[in-house]
């Protein structure tokens, strides 16, 4: 490639670096996907407030999580998947995420300090590092 003004030596390092992070990170994330008994854990402020085995869910249900200052999230659980259907946060990032069902996926609502994760194994402790890929 001809030396254009936007591809100086330092640039290449930066671009390659980010591509590397993307590739390595993708493989690391995919390695965590396989799931025999998907268990979803809903935590608020780091404490687990709801735990459910998604494949054992027969009837869809939903519940509301309250936070400080009127903050809330309404979580819907169906067989094999979970999502936040309504929330009080301004960005609605958690609602826009939609359903999650794999262990590499998670839903986060920062203003309400809510995190929904799907564990790899049923007895995985919440809030601890379960593995470092690289």
């Amino acid at each position, binding site marked *: 490639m001809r030396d254009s*003004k*936007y*591809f*100086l*030596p*330092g*640039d290449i390092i*930066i*671009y390659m670096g*980010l*591509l590397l*992070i*993307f*590739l*390595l*990170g*993708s493989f*690391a*994330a995919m390695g*965590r996907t396989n799931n025999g008994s998907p268990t979803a854990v809903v*935590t608020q*402020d*780091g404490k687990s407030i709801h735990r459910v085995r998604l494949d054992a869910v027969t009837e869809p249900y939903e519940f509301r999580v309250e936070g400080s200052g009127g903050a809330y999230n309404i979580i819907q659980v169906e067989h094999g998947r979970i999502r936040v259907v309504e929330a009080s*946060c*301004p*960005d609605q*990032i958690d609602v*826009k*995420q939609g359903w999650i069902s794999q262990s*590499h996926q*998670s839903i*986060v609502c*920062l*203003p309400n*300090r*809510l*995190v929904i*994760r799907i564990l790899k194994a049923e007895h995985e402790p919440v*809030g*601890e*590092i379960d593995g470092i890929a690289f």
Partner: protein
Amino acid sequence: MKEAPALSVRRITWIGVMVSQALLLHVVERLLPLPQLAPGVKLGLANIVTLVALEILPWGDALSILILRSFLGALLGGGASGVLFSLAGGILSFLGMSVLMRHKGSLFSVPAISVAGAFLHNVGQLCIAALVVETFNIIVYFPILAISALVTGFFTGVVADLVIKAIEHSRLMPVMGTTTQFGSLRK
């Protein structure tokens, strides 16, 4: 060489204009209906202002612009909690870009600096987020953020570069860059 003038009307005007430009871009960006790929994935249009400020204004002024627009931006929408995340990412990004700017022209081009800045911004926000919700798992978002930084950072960097060149060409303002604070290390 070129020195930073005393706190003149000119400097104050520049800072004021830059801050309002950044806020405007911030507001406009929020109005655009774009897909949310991951928390923190933004176009980062306001970074265009940060880059231009780093290049043509004294380093301290550029930092002031960043801090001012972070606080004011939270008032315009995004919530008070947004200030913390915005500052965390913004300052980390700013410091990184300041360092890279010193080698602009020889080692780095503006778009690349913008890409690095965009990524650092996301890293800063992600770290604060990990602390707030006490979940290390949040680190799975890194790859998406890396690619998004690459794309959006490049775009905003090119725009910033064009703006800088236009300012230089029009001789509106002597381009001072970071030489005023760190001595003449460039060129």
